[in-house]
């Protein structure tokens, strides 16, 4: 499993999306009415990131090529 989910979105992509949601809370667009919806999106994303970080393993492959002279 690589640094991706089924949607090919990396953890980095998700962090960018989370930061973008946080920015909305800091912006003039913020309204309490919309905040609940945005909060739910951020919460789902945060859980997803944490799950991926805890579950994903690296795939180490030793190449068979001979790099001798």
């Amino acid at each position: 499993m690589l640094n991706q989910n089924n949607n090919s979105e990396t953890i980095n992509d998700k962090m960018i999306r989370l930061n973008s949601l946080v920015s909305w809370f800091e912006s003039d667009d913020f309204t309490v009415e919309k905040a609940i919806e945005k909060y739910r999106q951020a919460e789902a994303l945060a859980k997803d990131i944490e799950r991926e970080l805890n579950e994903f393993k690296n795939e180490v492959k030793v190449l068979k090529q001979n790099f001798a002279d």
Partner: protein
Amino acid sequence: MENQEIQLSVSEFIDLSNQVLDGAFPNVVLTGEVSSFKINQGKFVFFDLKDDESTVPCFMMLFSLRHPIEDGMTVAIHAKPKLTKWGKFSLTVQRVRPVGEGSIKKSYEILKSKLTKEGLFATEKKRQLPEMPKNIGVISSVQAAGYADFIKIIGDRWGGMLVDVAQVRVQGDVASEQIIGAINHFNQQSVLPEIIVIIRGGGSADDLSVFNDERLTRAVASSRIPILTGIGHETDLSLVDMAADVAASTPSNAAEIIVPDKNDTIDKVADRMRYIVHKTLGSVDGILAETKNCLDKAVDDLTARYDEYVSQLGLIEGKLEAYNPSSILERGYVILRGDQKVGEQIGLETAKNYIKAEVLHVKSK
């Protein structure tokens, strides 16, 4: 048989001698001091290798000279003995490397100065490493302790990466060529790794001298892919470290540089969520406070208007009271009903009684 003569031409003798030498010394390594070092025509290297008692002439091609050498240095050479067609004996050198701390240091300083002048180590050439690489090329010996540390730490810190490992020697004469081969391999892939990491644990100056190899240093400097080195050393940076985009102090440090710690990332995510909750609740509190202020003001307004109505009502009631007949009667006045003529019956109303009376006398005012 013993005294049988061998009839040979001069050329045949030299060929036969070389065959004998090849058979006797297929792979000889000599260590000695360099003297009479010179380069002819920009490509042929000549020097003598000597010890306290003997000297042997050596020849090699300049492109095979991977470490600068000069007179007085102690070097180890891989060479084949050869009798030339002019009857001169010499060693044809394939590889040469400085031996001993003093010679290694001197060679290092010469090459460092040369490559610095060429700009190989210039700061402006350094590239930023990718923040969260998905595809890493590692060049190391999988038996090395430094490699195990590196793999363990990146696994502890981050996941989901594809780590291709080029297994090479990281010390000895063949190491530099193998590492160059691995760098070239990664640079020729259709999908390039985002970063190459060269890993090697600590060792003696001799062990680490491969990382001061000129061709290897140039290969690192010219890699299309950014290179991070994690070569254990406690003294001088190797030339390969200096040519790399980033040089970590150890393999473990390289692992820390290449990926963030997932626990830090989880903490950052939690911080962001806390901020969102704080901001939202803060806004709700603000709205509640504002609403309360509005309500308080409305109550104050209503109270003031009520008081005003009550006050006005009091005035009106006072006026009404003043016109009330009962109040007038209470003040002692009498309502008179009937004709005010002598002999007529009239009705009188006081505050407390109704009275019938007869008019006895009438006088105009």
